[in-house]
């Protein structure tokens, strides 16, 4: 439905791994693959939610795009921004201007610097002052908040301050990393609708969250993330019913929403070091078969994508 729009960010087969010393062996280094084969596309004015549980590597996705991985991190795959490859040099220039990050919590603010100065990011000119005042008004922050230190902010205020930092420039891409934890439902909903508004004004928004329910309310498309890889991409509408979902994990997520019965499945997400062959969800999946232990392709399915052998076959059978 948003086909006519320009693609802002396209991530293809992104993998992030960390060099680590193998346990107890001392000098031997191993590569720890944290994200494998991740693909996400964001268009102008679109809000895409990446949903995954804790430890699935969601935050790293944001850091990877921004070129902020620690020195032992290695990123592969293709990232293009507005149709051109996003090189480390380019991202260094763009971050903070066209590509902005809205971090998780108030701990991303300097504890010893006044909020106003931080929103302005060290700029002291009149234009910056004017802009920050305007943003404060827009998000219902009093002018006196400028002189507070981060530790004096309430959760909701901190959230709005963080959004203000992102909007000081006119960003084309906003990456929001877990913006809702610690907020009560109303505040969380308010925060997400703030992001929706940013998207409606034309920017692309990449929302990283673990809250599927809230993501469904605001996002255009939802990408489900499991154990470091994308397993399904679907429109938010597809998430309203279980039947329209393609991957068994997404369906399980859907069932886990309180209104849908609070259902749960056995087991936990595998840790990077003991990842099963092939499909990471395999050991917890009802439809697990031999085929699932091979590499699973990322294929188009309806207006979404899925990475599941079972759903491929189901598709074939339906056809």
């Amino acid at each position, binding site marked *: 439905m948003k086909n006519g729009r320009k693609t802002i960010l396209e991530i293809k087969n992104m993998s992030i791994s960390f060099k680590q010393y193998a346990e107890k062996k001392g000098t031997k280094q191993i590569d720890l693959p944290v994200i494998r084969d991740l693909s996400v596309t964001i268009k102008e004015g679109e809000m895409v939610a990446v949903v995954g549980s804790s430890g699935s590597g969601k935050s790293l996705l944001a*850091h990877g795009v*921004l070129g*902020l991985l620690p*020195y032992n991190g290695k990123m592969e795959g293709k990232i293009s921004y507005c149709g051109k490859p996003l090189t480390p040099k380019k991202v*260094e*220039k*763009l*971050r*903070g*201007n066209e590509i*902005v*990050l809205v*971090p998780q*919590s108030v*701990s*991303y*603010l*300097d*504890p*010893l*610097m006044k909020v106003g100065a931080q929103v302005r*990011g*060290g700029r002291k000119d009149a234009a910056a002052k004017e802009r920050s005042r305007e943003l404060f008004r827009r998000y219902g922050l009093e002018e006196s908040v400028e002189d507070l*230190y981060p*530790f*004096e902010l309430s959760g909701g205020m901190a959230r709005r301050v963080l959004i203000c*930092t992102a909007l000081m420039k006119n960003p084309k891409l906003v990456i929001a990393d877990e913006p809702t934890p610690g907020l009560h439902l109303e505040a969380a909903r308010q925060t997400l609708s703030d992001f929706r508004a940013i998207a409606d004004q034309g920017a692309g928004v990449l929302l990283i969250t673990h809250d599927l329910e809230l993501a469904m309310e605001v996002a255009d498309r939802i990408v489900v993330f499991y154990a470091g890889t994308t397993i399904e991409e679907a429109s938010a509408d597809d998430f309203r019913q279980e039947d329209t979902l393609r991957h068994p994990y997404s369906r399980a997520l859907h069932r886990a929403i309180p209104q849908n019965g609070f259902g749960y499945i056995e087991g936990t997400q595998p840790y990077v070091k003991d990842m099963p062959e092939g499909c990471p969800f395999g050991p917890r999946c009802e439809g697990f078969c031999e085929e699932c232990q091979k590499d699973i392709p990322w294929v188009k399915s309806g207006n979404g994508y899925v990475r599941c052998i079972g759903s491929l076959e189901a598709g074939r059978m339906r056809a």
Partner: protein
Amino acid sequence: MILLVIGVSIAAFLLISASPIDPLQANVGQAALGSMSQEQIEKLQEYWGVGQPPMERYLAWAGDFIRGDMGTSLLYRQSVSAVIAVKLGNSLFLMITAWILSGFFGLVLGIISGMNEGKFVDKAVKGYCLVIASTPAFWLALLLLMIFGVWLKVLPIGLSVPIGVEASGVTFMDRLRHAILPAVTLSITGVSNIALHTREKMIDVMESEYVLFARARGESRWSILKNHGLRNILLPAMTLQFASISEIFGGSVLVEQVFSYPGLGQAAVTAGLGSDVPLLMAITIISALFVFGGNFIANVLYGIVDPRIRKGAKER
């Protein structure tokens, strides 16, 4: 603070009481004591309060001390306060120079090294600091003495004034020249500790989430250092700086000894070896005051500089 001083003085007093110092021997001398009659000795013993319980002696000393009478130094034959005034003057010059130099260079090296963790600069600074930290101060002093005083002959080998010059003929430059080596020694040893601590702290700051966010907002390394690094490193640096007073004080004892520099540290050693109880007690108290003062100032500054403490205190 008063409690602390009382505690320190009692401890020092007890230690000295327990030591085998005989006031008669210390004051009159072995030879003179031997030629005295029993009566004379008894009179003197009464005068010096031999046999009085330690508690009474302590109270007598403390009472005088509070009134500003620190007693008379046995070795210098002057009032203790006069001796300390001179020695402290000499030492303070040394210590303040060392304090400022080591603080400044320690901070700068620490920041440079912390900003470049793992790179060559960092390794060089770290290596330097570890070598210096494991080098005894007196050995370093001897080394510098050999290089600059004996081989190059550019700086004097000791004392605080030139030998054979009248006191009135001593210029400020003379004093300065004599203070350079001991001050440099003290600074060099002081730097490593401060630099290593600052480095650790700087690495913490650079790995913090707010620095990550600052980078995400496109701030350059320099701007991160300016806006966030210095701000967050300031508090721990301050604590370190004031806590290092005690270390410099301790270091000065050794260094002054090597350079025969007539400062407080040397006086302390002389007093200890020469059984000069009043002087030793006074120096102990003054050192305690210095160290305590340093930490106290750091604490007070914390309240002024750190908004979290400042504002928290206001709300209460």
